[in-house]
């Protein structure tokens, strides 16, 4: 697909940036959350109600953080592991979602990152 095609798809609301290729893409927000495995249903509920239609999940992630080193998934216990959930959506939806996730993380272990992201096919994220 050529550059013009991308721009057409991006529609009128594409964000401005200093890098030229961004002109052809749509600015959205990206939320990355690492939570305990048994908090994933709560997270899914939040995403569904905030209108975030899709997400990517990696279960059994390992890492070092505030609470020490956490190993990845144990062979036969998926609840005792962390999941990384990555969701991209228009900013206002992520904004709603962030309120919910912050509330969740007030009492539950986990981390959350929000960042800007540029996507080529915005219709996939609405």
């Amino acid at each position, binding site marked *: 697909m050529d550059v013009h095609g991308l721009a057409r798809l991006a529609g009128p609301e594409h964000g401005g940036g200093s890098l030229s290729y961004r002109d052809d893409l749509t600015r959205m927000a990206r939320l990355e959350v690492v939570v305990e495995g048994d908090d994933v249903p709560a997270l899914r*509920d939040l995403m569904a109600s905030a209108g975030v239609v899709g997400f990517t999940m990696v279960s059994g992630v390992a890492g070092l953080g505030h609470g020490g080193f956490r*190993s990845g998934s144990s062979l*036969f216990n*998926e609840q005792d592991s962390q999941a990384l959930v990555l969701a991209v959506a228009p900013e206002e939806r992520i*904004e709603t979602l962030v309120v*919910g996730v912050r509330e*969740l993380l007030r009492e539950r272990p986990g981390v959350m990152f929000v960042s800007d992201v540029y996507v080529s096919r915005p219709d996939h994220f609405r």
Partner: protein
Amino acid sequence: MSPTALAPSGPPVSDAVRARLRADISLAARVLPVSRPLADLVAVNPLGGFEDRDVPTAVEAARAWYGVVGHLGEPAYRAVYASGRIDDTDLAAALRRWAPEIPWGTWLVAPGAGSGRGSTLEAVILADLHHGEVAEIGGRTEMSLAEAHDARGGAEVAATVDAHVVRWCAAHLDRGQASWSPMRGEAGLYRAWQQLVRHDRTLARAVRRRLATGPQRPEDAVLAAFDAFGSGSDDQLSLLRAELTALPGWAAHLRWRSDVTGDAALVDYLALRLSLTAALIATSSPQDSAASVPNPGRIDRTAPDPATRARIALHRLGVDPGALDPDGWDLLVEVLGHIAPSRRPWVWQAAYEAHYRGGLLRSLSRSTAVSHASDTRPRAQVVCCIDVRSEGLRRHLEGDPEIDTLGFAGFFAVAIGWRAVSGGQSLANCPALIDPRHEVSEVVMGSQRVAEGNRRRTAAWAGTRDGVHEAETTPGSAFALAEAAGWITGPVAGLRTASPTGWEALRRGTRRRVAATPPTTVDLTGCIPPADRVLTARAALTMMGLTSGFARLVVLCGHSSDTAANPYEASLRCGACGGHGGGPNARVLAAILNDGDTRESLRSHGIDLPDDTVVVAAEHDTTSDVVTVLDPHLVPSTHHDDLDRVRYDLDRAGAALAAERCSRLPGAPAAGDDAATPPRSAVRHVARRGADWSETFPEWGLAGNAAFVIGPRSLTRDLDLQRRVFLHSYDWTVDTDGTALETILTAPLVVAQWINCQYWLSSTDPDVFGAGTKTVHNPVGDVGVLSGRSGDLCLGLPRQSVAVGPVLVHEPLRLMAVVQAPLDRISAIVDRHPRLRDLLAGGWVTMVARGRPGEGWTEWTSTGWRDWLAPSMVVEA
């Protein structure tokens, strides 16, 4: 903003506020136990949401919502003491384990000094334990809006709200019992209810009008109710928890349905509950606040202060308080201050556990069996589930020294969705901790024609039952059906009651004649990729420490239980198989281990299954103690003799186990004092228990469970563990990198801990986390049971699982894990798994380990390993 937010009642709500509410609901719901449908029941820790705290703190936290007690209560422990199952050395050990730094042996009053008798600090504390005034234990203090309204003296709202909520929850969550059920599977309960409730004439017109014009979104309805009657959004989480725990059984099941099947949502439930509460409160006439009653769960009486308790205890010992020097007095009062009367039962509980644990560890140390794997090749190796009931079967099987047994999680490391040959839905035959990884189908062996014939016969069998069911539920047709069918079902009921085994034989015989199932097998092709087969086989064999010295016959023995008219049938089945029978999993692992290509790959990993080793699947019915060999048609003719001998052994062991169990089953034939029931009549008797529709005590399940031994069988082979111990085979020398131990400690141990907690709390809190007596159970389809005509869904195990009438049979002891493995390896695993660490540090599980036979036992503590304290103190009293 969406126009829906501008609904008549309630202020405009932003999406952010809604998101915050939804997050709070998820957080609030963490105090709810996991409540699976009855057909898939597995034991869980009802206090699972509190596991990050130590046990007494967790119980006290949960008390505010549930009124849970968590222990037997001091009068009970004192009675246990009187019976000899706790003694002073146990209490001394419990005190020392609780606070090793306190100088328990200090003489407060030296023996010869003065006119009175001498006494140590410990003796005074023991006197307080024995004679101190029993603390009153509070109940639920956090009240829902309706309860709070009632407590303020308002017109009764809570009972109306509960009845209404139960009615709609039952209609919404029912999965096929009611024949007219427009609410079933309705995604948005709140919206659907709002449409319909306007027709509910049991509610006042004003209430109905208010509900019909309420907010359309469930979040907004919850927030509107809180705005009107809650006390501000700061403690929104507490308010939500109080609402959810008003009927914890229904809420817990809703949570499971929302998390797992997705056909229900807690926010809808709360919206329904709260908007009704608010409407009822708003329309009820204001009441005289003078009529207000105190919070029923709160305790007003204050416990005696430590100094008073010290004086009373000294008086009991015949010691004059004036004889104590000021330092001694201060020490005594300080220590008593730490052991508040409300915490004293936990000292008793620890002593109760110390009594059993000390005895078990002493037996384990004395056990001198050596592994004889190297001397001769065993005739057969039987791998059983870790379930405590397997211990009995294994012990009796080993009566023949040529048979070796091993213990392994009953799903045999194959987490499968199992589709039986009858062709229905796939069932998750794996622990609740994981999701099925492979879909496996049972298939008919033989031609397409055989399979088709089987399908038709199954359909005919099912069609007959469905026809009767259809006639029962169609309006008008039920009249004639009942009057005609009764002439058959009445005599059948008489037969089933008079001769349960006769009826069972008749039923099975008919089924066999009309719709016999041809031989079947599991088809691995397309279900489990070859690489996964090798992984599974390696994981299983390494975890159980069986990587060499294979016998000619390896029997993988899962377990199940068939009981008649028993809603809690699944609680007797394999917890590692999702409350189902373990036979399918055993068949799948057997197929994998018999697969030539898999064996070839295993050889490259150093696991050499000899060509003459055949793996066979079997299933142990724990109610009848009959062990059935599955897929015998797959065993090559070279091994028929071996199979026949093993079958004989299994029959013999089953009969011996049945005889052993009869001594503890209420209503079993007693052969007189101390003599065991003869095996022959025991076998007949236990067969009756499974088939009998009037049997409320089919078997004891896992009652009595108290410990989990992880190590080679040589550790326990000499012992009669009385079916109280989970046994997982493990050989750390085979487990080079420690992953097998890591898996055992993070999965089977957790499942065992759930079972242990389930039995424990069903015993100590039968009204909260127990399901009450079976004789009044009223099942709501397979969703759960009601105790009587209405009310909350029951949580936990029925009384008949833990007690005979007023007498507890299950001793509520928390789990002790005994591991034989290098300590640093265990520590490293615990440190990597914060949840496991929480369980150990919080006292949910106590872990004791030793590196190798002959070493002393050491206990894991959060500050490092500590020598197991032998309760050998002699107490001066």
